[in-house]
């Protein structure tokens, strides 16, 4: 089985107000692509009702670091009661969205994701030994890299929501 080290566990960002959902989605997708993560959009739910739109997205992009380790950034986005509203900016009417967005972030380091070191007890033993005594500095570095990717993503999202104030 894949060994999973949790680097970030259910970090939440909640925002309520005006935003541009399409631009936000574009920015997040582009971020993953730029950082070399393989696209994995596991869930994309959209429900239209009288109160507005409910959107739920689950991204689980992953990046192969070596044949032994890969990083996974998981991001769940839940948008409640999203409505289209028009605001005036620089004398022009601009269509934006209004609603509540919840972001839930998780980040993992997955090792032995191809289950190569679990086929025999001997291999499992060697792997545990190596993980504990030889690879520790290596995996610590990888964890720091994943944490950096996560921090940058959170900063970008926060920046996007704060910088684009449609007031």
């Amino acid at each position, binding site marked *: 089985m894949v060994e999973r080290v949790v680097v970030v566990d259910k970090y939440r960002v909640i925002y309520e107000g005006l935003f541009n959902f399409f631009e936000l989605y574009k920015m997040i*997708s582009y971020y993953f692509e730029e950082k070399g993560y393989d696209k994995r959009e*596991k869930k*994309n*739910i959209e429900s239209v009702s009288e109160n507005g739109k409910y959107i739920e997205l689950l991204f689980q992009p992953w990046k192969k670091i070596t044949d032994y380790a890969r990083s996974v950034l998981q991001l769940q986005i839940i948008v409640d009661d*999203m409505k289209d509203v028009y605001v005036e900016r620089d004398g022009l009417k601009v269509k934006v969205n209004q609603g509540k967005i919840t972001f839930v972030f998780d980040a993992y380091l997955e090792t032995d994701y191809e289950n190569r070191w679990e086929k025999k007890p001997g291999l499992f033993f060697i792997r545990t030994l190596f993980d504990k005594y030889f690879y520790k500095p290596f995996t610590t570095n990888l964890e720091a890299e994943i944490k950096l990717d996560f921090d940058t993503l959170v900063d970008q999202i926060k920046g996007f929501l704060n910088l684009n104030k449609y007031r």
Partner: protein
Amino acid sequence: MTKLTLGPYDSHAPIIKYVGVFNYDKLYRDMAGWFGKWGYELRENTHKHKVPLPSGSEQDIKWEGWRKVNEYVRFWIDVHLHVYDLKNVEVVKDGVKRKLWWGRVMVRLDFRIDLDYSDRFKGKMGKIMQDILHKYIWRKQIESGWEDEVYYRMYKLHEVIKESLNMESCYNASERRY
């Protein structure tokens, strides 16, 4: 070893769910059109239409599209479209009345890769040679080449479906790939 199929890759399978008004004919046409555009042969394995209830009708459609990459490799893209509570509705948009559909849509995509689909490697010697090809010579090509290619092509179809349903998250940052 003869034909070898990699996948379906359940853990990678993207799911789209949509509840609301949509153009069912357009969705069906766009999806089928995408397969045609990219040179896939489309096979409709299931097309169930259940007796309409007061809440609406139900349709269950399963497609598989395949395309030869070369004489050894074949890509498959599977689509499972399930629509519940499907009803006809009339919508007025820009002063024009249009007949559309309201329903709950679920689309699940997956992919597979056939290696040696024409059964060229037969017997013990064939198996040994095929193993060498798969494990040493073509390992990278299989994992990072063909798997990636069909994976990102599947996401192009994913994009077409979202666009057809007029969903908010209509953007594919990996459009340039393959």
